């Protein structure tokens, strides 16, 4: 919505029909309302899993975008459907400069199966990108690539790291730390020891587990797709931010903000 982000005034919330996109878009809609965006400037659309024919939807997006205001797409399309979606987007002539797409579930791994030419400039929001430059990340990538080669993973020479992998990596280490602290693998004791654990993550920050809600405090990055299937970080938070399991933009969650 900022000038930096393209000053979008209309939003297409496009997702695969399951819990995550539904919930995300519910929060997004509430957030957009709070910023004064009207319902008529929000188009919400869901496709089934594995949907592969995006012709009609893209035509609808174009129509929606042609109403004169700058339009952005927030995509929570999951998995396989992304390839046909982006291919269709490119072929229909919608460039990132016209209608940028911000994806919440497209990462480096997903882009391995995609011809990235038509995607240049589209965006993704994650807590980690492989392109982040810091020693921890370099070591992390190296370790994974070595492992993949050693274990003959198909296409081992082109393996990539991504946010979910980083999250798992962090999670396992924190669990190990908590086990050491609790001196037990008993679930309840480990849970008790989990809160407040910290770990120097490949994302370049030292992450902390929230003491009350056991979510991680993480940085947020926005990256633009590059031709090689990697992301160019174009925006990031200054420091890790606290996770809010109950969105403040949804009515009824006011009492839960401390959680």
């Amino acid at each position, binding site marked *: 919505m900022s000038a930096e982000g393209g000053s979008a005034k209309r939003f297409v919330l496009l997702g695969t*029909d*399951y*819990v995550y996109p*539904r*919930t995300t878009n*519910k929060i997004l809609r509430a957030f957009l309302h709070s910023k004064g965006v009207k319902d008529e400037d929000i188009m919400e659309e*869901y496709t*089934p*899993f594995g949907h592969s024919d995006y012709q009609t939807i893209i035509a609808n997006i174009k129509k929606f975008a042609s109403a004169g205001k700058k339009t952005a797409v927030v995509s929570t399309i999951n998995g396989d459907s992304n390839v046909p979606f982006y291919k269709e987007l490119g072929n229909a002539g919608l460039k990132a400069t016209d209608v940028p797409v911000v994806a919440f579930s497209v990462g480096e791994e997903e882009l391995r199966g995609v011809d990235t030419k038509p995607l240049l400039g589209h965006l993704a929001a994650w807590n980690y990108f492989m392109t982040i430059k810091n020693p921890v990340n370099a070591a992390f990538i190296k370790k994974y690539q070595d492992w993949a080669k050693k274990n003959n993973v198909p296409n081992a020479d082109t393996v990539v790291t991504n946010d979910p992998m980083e999250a798992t990596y962090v999670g396992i280490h924190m669990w190990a730390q908590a086990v050491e602290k609790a001196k037990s693998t008993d679930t309840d004791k480990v849970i008790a020891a989990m809160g407040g654990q910290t770990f120097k993550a490949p994302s370049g920050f030292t992450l902390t587990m929230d003491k009350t809600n056991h979510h991680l405090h993480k940085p947020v990055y926005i990256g633009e797709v590059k031709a090689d299937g990697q992301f160019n970080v174009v925006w990031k938070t200054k420091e890790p931010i606290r996770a809010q399991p109950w969105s403040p933009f949804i009515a009824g969650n006011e009492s839960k903000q401390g959680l």
Partner: protein
Amino acid sequence: MRTPLTIRFLTSMPRKGWLALAIFALVAWVGVPMAHLMLPESSPFSVSAYTVTLMGKILCYAVVAVAMDLIWGYAGILSLGHGLFFALGGYGFGMYLMRQIGTDGSYGVNLPDFMVFLDWKELPWFWVGSDSFLWALVLVVAVPGALAFIFGYFAFRSRIKGVYFSIITQALTYAAMLLFFRNETGFGGNNGFTDFKRILGYDITSPEMRLTLFGLSAALLMFVLLLGRYLVTSKFGRVLAAIRDAESRVMFIGYQPLWYKLFIWTLSAVLCALAGALYVPQVGIINPSEMSAANSIEIAIWVAVGGRGTLVGPVIGAFIVNLAKSFFTVEFPEYWLFFLGFLFIGVTLFLPDGVVGLWRKLFARKPATETESPPPVQKPAAVPEKDEHLAAKGAAA
């Protein structure tokens, strides 16, 4: 032939059959509960919670297999839509289970969680009454039954049979799966129902509940076997087999095959639904993937492996395939599809009568009497008679 019904029912099965049934009942209702509750975990005869649930699950599958066999083995109609009826039964009972969660869900509201995130403020009309156990039972039987009846009525009335019927049942199931994947449909979309807490107020994870569900599954299987036995030995069963072998002849002697097929088809669907209703509380989840084409076709392979046109065959097949699945997916997950794939091919090519047929061939003292279990129509000819190929096509066309 001129004996009263009850006697006929009793004599419809040889004494050995009744004995086997009694032993099975004893094991399921006394042996397993005792082994699960009383024996310490260290005992070699102890039955773990995992095993009870696994067996309970496979018993439900066995019911589905027998139901499938009634329609495929005895009436020659291969359904690729039984996964749908199974799932509908599961959804019917799942609605009740969801309501039993009450305010224990993650939003703490007296609405299923998925409705909360969809911003629904109240239950949609088709959920009305779903908090009643009895109404849930009605739903379990009535919805799949009505769907099967309506679909079957139109399909059989149009004389759709053979592969055509199989393909449109698959289309039906596929359409239903797409429908249930939608969140707007009101059944939890992709995630379906899960996180069940209790049945009739009792904790669903307690050993007693586990054993009760297991015992009920065993009871349902026995009931289905007895019912099947009665049906196939009755005149109804003979008409059914006659329809399978020569439908036009049956019509010309004055039977309306439509109603016969419709009866067995609807019954089969309802039995599947009952199995589904028992299955869901045992595995703790129901979602639309139960309606995928692969699931329905797998049911057919249970029947084929065991031996179609027999009642015990499908039970054996369900156990063999599902135990193999449990084994492979744990030990060699990458080979499971190879195993299943070759099982499909091998059984159709080399074991047309399944394990039971093999058993009979190997240990036959006397040839199987025809009245007991008419063999399936399409026996592989010793000489591949390719002319049939055309005939079959004509029939399909």
